[in-house]
Structures are given as structure tokens and as C-alpha cells.
């Protein structure tokens, strides 16, 4: 188990290497550069800037330099926000983005799983129809649409929550709900299907044959087994939350790191873009290892070797 996990975690390093190489060369092969403005800078200025930032070096040299800095924890200067280091930008925004992601994840699992169980236990009766309707709405509504609708309804019409910003708990509600809407639906669907599958298992018949009360059959025999396949979709769900948060940050004007991603691509802010991509890739890869651990914890048959 330990050696498996060590290998899995070490494997993240080559993944990040490849991701960074692809991003780096892709980005630099694109026309345009960080100095493009509405008003063109004189050639002498750009040449001087390029020399100053090392952009006149061959790409391989630039990459090695970037990678060397990255390994020592230096994400380099921002090209766009010229007075700031990328480290500072990330340090400022990351806690907010992580907080949003974690809250949305908790909301998605804490609502989605019970909703799915509730539906399965009331199979083909009103709880099922209610829960399935909620899932369908969740799946049919992209997060940006949900975000807009929530703002119109709860901020503009009812005035319960602010339309944007990130200054306190009342600011957290709408973005978290908007981000969690889709995962809630996905998790609820999976949980329901998995519960229905488990209901037909032989060991559930065995549990009933022992004379257990229905609720102990559900709580002790069904739920844990039903959650095993649900855990497998938590990985993609987390990835969705990580990459999906930037659009929510945009709509609700949240000062996270997500907002910088699009900007950094559009303004050719190479160092910021590299930092963002590697950060996201790390988050996705790492969270998948976490999901694997969770998987082994919940299913005793799985012993990684």
C-alpha cells in the first residue's frame, strides 16, 4: 500500500513535466508576445524587455531556466502585472479558489449522496421522481447558467445575497451552489444507480434472511457497498470543480486564481500561465491519488501492490 502510494505520488512528477513542456512550447510557438498592447511599443523597447526577461534566448534554454526556478519554488515574474511575482499572485488567490472548491465538493457529496440514497429507497415512488427531477435539472444546467439564474433570483429579485465578491459567508453561498449544482446531479445519479444495483445483491438477501430490520440492512449492508462505485467518479468530479471554478469566479467576481488563467493566455503572460497550468495539473493528479486511498479504505478487497 505505502509503496504503491509512493509510486503513484512520484508518477505525478513526470506527468507535470510533460504537461509543462507541452504548455510551454505550445504557448511560445504562438504569434504575439507579452508586450503586445493596443498601442504598439517601439521595437527598441520590446527588444530591451525581451533581453531583460530572457525571452531572446532559445526556447530550450528558457524552459530549463523556468523549470530550474520552478523546482526551487520561484514561479518567476509576471509579465502582465509587472510589479508582482507570480508567487504572490498565486498566494493571494489560491486560498479563495481552494475554499470555493472544497465547499462545493462538500456540498456536492453531502447533498448528492443522500439524494441518491433517498431516490433508491423510494424507487419508482415520489422520492425517486423528486430526486431524479433535481438530478435532471442539475445535469441540464451549465454552471454559468446556474450562476446567472441564482444572481437574478436571489440577488437581484430577492436581495438575499450579494451579486459578487468574496468578503464573508453570505458571499460564499451562491458561488458554491452554482459550482456544486452539476456534481450534485452526477453524484446523485450514480448513487441511486449503485444503490439499486446493490439492492439485488445476494448478500442483501442474506442480510434480510438474518431478520435484520430494514434500516440496518440499508445502513450497514447497502450504503457502504453502494458508495464504492461512487468513489470512482469523485476523481473526475474534483477535476471538474478545479477547472470549472474559474468560470464561477468570473461570474461572481471572486478574487481567486481562476480569473488569471484566461487573462494569462490572452496576454501571453508566460510565467503566470505556466504556474496556473502546472498547479491545476498537480491538483487533478494529486486528488486522484487521494481518491485511490479513499477507495482502498472503503473496499477491503482492494489492496494496492
Amino acid at each position, binding site marked *: 500500500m505505502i509503496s504503491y502510494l509512493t509510486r503513484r505520488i512520484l508518477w505525478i512528477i513526470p506527468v507535470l513535466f510533460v504537461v509543462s513542456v507541452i504548455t510551454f512550447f505550445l504557448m511560445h510557438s504562438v504569434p504575439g508576445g507579452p508586450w503586445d498592447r493596443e498601442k504598439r511599443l517601439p521595437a527598441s523597447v520590446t527588444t530591451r524587455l525581451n533581453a531583460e526577461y530572457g525571452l531572446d534566448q532559445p526556447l530550450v534554454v528558457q524552459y530549463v531556466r523556468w523549470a530550474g526556478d520552478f523546482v526551487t519554488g520561484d514561479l518567476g515574474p509576471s509579465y502582465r502585472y509587472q510589479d508582482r511575482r507570480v508567487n504572490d499572485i498565486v498566494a493571494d488567490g489560491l486560498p479563495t479558489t481552494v475554499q470555493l472548491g472544497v465547499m462545493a465538493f462538500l456540498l456536492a457529496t453531502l447533498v448528492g449522496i443522500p439524494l441518491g440514497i433517498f431516490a433508491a429507497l423510494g424507487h419508482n415512488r415520489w422520492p425517486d421522481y423528486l430526486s431524479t427531477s433535481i438530478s435532471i435539472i442539475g445535469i441540464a444546467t451549465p454552471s454559468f447558467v446556474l450562476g446567472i439564474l441564482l444572481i437574478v433570483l436571489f440577488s437581484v429579485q430577492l436581495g438575499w445575497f450579494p451579486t459578487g465578491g468574496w468578503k464573508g459567508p453570505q458571499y460564499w453561498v451562491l458561488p458554491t451552489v452554482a459550482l456544486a449544482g452539476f456534481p450534485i446531479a452526477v453524484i446523485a445519479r450514480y448513487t441511486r444507480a449503485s444503490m439499486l444495483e446493490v439492492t*439485488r*445483491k*445476494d*448478500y442483501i*438477501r*442474506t*442480510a*434480510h*434472511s*438474518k*431478520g*435484520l*430490520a430494514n434500516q440496518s440492512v440499508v445502513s*450497514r*449492508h447497502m450504503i*457502504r*457497498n453502494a458508495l*464504492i462505485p461512487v468513489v470512482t467518479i469523485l476523481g473526475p468530479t474534483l477535476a471538474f470543480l478545479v477547472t470549472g471554478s474559474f468560470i464561477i469566479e468570473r461570474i461572481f467576481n471572486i478574487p481567486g486564481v481562476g480569473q488569471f488563467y484566461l487573462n494569462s493566455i490572452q496576454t501571453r503572460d508566460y510565467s503566470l500561465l505556466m504556474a496556473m497550468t502546472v498547479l491545476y495539473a498537480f491538483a487533478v493528479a494529486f486528488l486522484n491519488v487521494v481518491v485511490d486511498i479513499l477507495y482502498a479504505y*472503503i*473496499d*477491503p*478487497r482492494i489492496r494496492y501492490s
Partner: protein
Amino acid sequence: MTESDSPTIIEVSPDDVRRAQTADAGADKGRKADKLLSVRGLSTHFFTPDGVVQAVDDVTFEVGYGETLGLVGESGCGKSVTALSIARLVPDPPGKIVAGEISFDGIDVLKLGEEEMRHLRGKEIGFIFQDPLTSLNPTLTIGYQIAESIRQHMGLSQKAARDRVVELLTKVGIPRAKDRLNDYPHQFSGGMRQRVMIAIALSCDPKLILADEPTTALDVTIQAQILELIAQLSDEFSTAVLLITHDLGIAAGMCDRVNVMYAGRIVETGTVDELFENPRMPYSWGLLDSLPRLDDVRGDRLRTIEGLPPLLIQPPDACRFNPRCRFTRDICLEREPALTPRETALHLARCWATEPDGWIP
């Protein structure tokens, strides 16, 4: 003779039935009725999108205290559904017990509430299922799974329940039982898993064990051990066993009496000796013929019963075995024969050809 007469035929001579009861052991279990289990006219149907499947149709039989009764037939003949019906474990929907009466130790099972039913399941009626791998919960330790029924029904403390689990595991032949309490089912071999199932079935000292193909999923060498274990423990605990199997050989070795089921109905019933020496229903001959024998000529193919059992959706009023029978005559297609006595009042068969005026002597 019409179909509805069949249950009454058994009732005409209940005294004979009782006298002929060979293994009437288990007097120490506190009897509340003549028979531990009495099933009368049981019909269990499945309501599927394709139609109503009459999985069990008007089945009547009895199990004495401590007796081992065999229920034999091909897969799909309704024997498992019969067992599940007794404990009211038929999945509903789509299954439903639509008619009949089940009396267990003097209790009218079909009239019990769900709560009272739970006191029977696991406590008075233990189950051994076919595939011990899928019948044990993969995410719970076997210690927990055995202790569960004990704690549920016997109100023992955690410590006392644990001791009882160790005792049971030792009894069913699991070595180093104490060390294995925290193991999961996948850490056991197939035979050992079935021993665990037997420990669960016996955990509350039940009056009846429903053993549904308990050895079908196991290796041949293990099969004998498991059967031996069931026989020995049911004797020791004076527990009655309803042994469900497709293997007439197993039934012969284990049972006092045997019911042969075909297409949802009992087609022949009698003591093991009667059935083996003088079967009175072509289907039973087929089952006997299918057994490999020592005097088989090498190179002979195993004999099989040709064809498949009929679908049980709206079966016609005809002998259900007729499409596969070598002795079919017109009457077999016109009306279904009833279960009627043959040479003794306890040997019954459902066949026009072996009736006193039939065409098979």
C-alpha cells in the same frame, strides 16, 4: 380427477404421513405443532413485463421436526422460490405469494407482520445460499456478519456474542477461529466461506435450515465435506433441513424424503428408497438417468433430459412435462394430472401414465 383435488389427497391420510415419518428427532425443541413446517397450496407468481410467471404453483408439502427433506429439480423449476417464500424473502416487486398457507411451528407465517416475521428469520429459520462469495457482504468482517444475527436475536453483549462466534466458527471447522474474526470474505476459500454461511445459519440455533444448493458453487471434494458438516450439525442441533438441490445423488445421501419439482409444481414425492427404486414419473426417471453411474460403459455420453422446461407464463391445462416426455399420449395434452398416491399413501406422483389405469405398468 381435477387439479384442485390434489391438496386434499395428501390430507386424506395425515396419520399415515405421521407414522411414516422416519426421522422424528428433535423432541427437545419444544414442538407447537404436528409438523415443523407445513406448506399448503403455495403459489408464488412474478409479475414481469412479459406476463405473470407462475414460478411456484399450488405446492404442498410438510417437513417434520428434525427431518431433512429434499426438494429436487432443474434450475428454474421453482425450488428456490419455494424456499424464499417460506421466509417471505421473495423480492416484491416483482414476486408475490398469491395463494396458499405456510405454517411454521404452529405459526401462520403469511399472516405475520413484518416485525414478527423478522423474529423468525435468522432466529427460527436459518439460510444457506448457493454462492457463499456473493452471499457474504464483501465489506464487512465475517466476525461481524455472524455476530449480527446473534446480537439481533439473542440480545447478547458484544463480548458474549464474540465468544459465541468463535465457538460457532470452531464448530463449522474453521481453524484458528479467533484470529479470523476480523478477516473479510475474500480472504477465505470457497469451502471456508460456505462454512461461515453455515455458522450464520446455525448462529441462533434455528428449528429449520433452508439450504439452497449449498454445494453447487463448490469443488467436488469440498462438496462432500460441506454436506457432511450440514448433516452432522443438523443432527447435533436437531435442526430440520429443507435441502434444495438439482442433484438427486446429493438428496439420496442426505434426505429422508424427497420432493421432485418440475415447472413450479411438485411432480413426485416419496421416501428416498421409493423414489430411487420405483420412480413413478418420467421426469424422475430422467433425473435418475442423468446421474453418472459406476457401471457406465466408458465412452458413453452422460444421459440428459432433452429439451428445456416450459415458460411458466400461462401454462396450459396439460401435463407440464409432456413436450419432453417419451410416453406422451393425447390425455397428457388435454388435462393436467393430479398428484395421486401410488403403491403407498406417501408415494405420490403426477402422471397419467403411471395412474392405476395408465399405460405404464
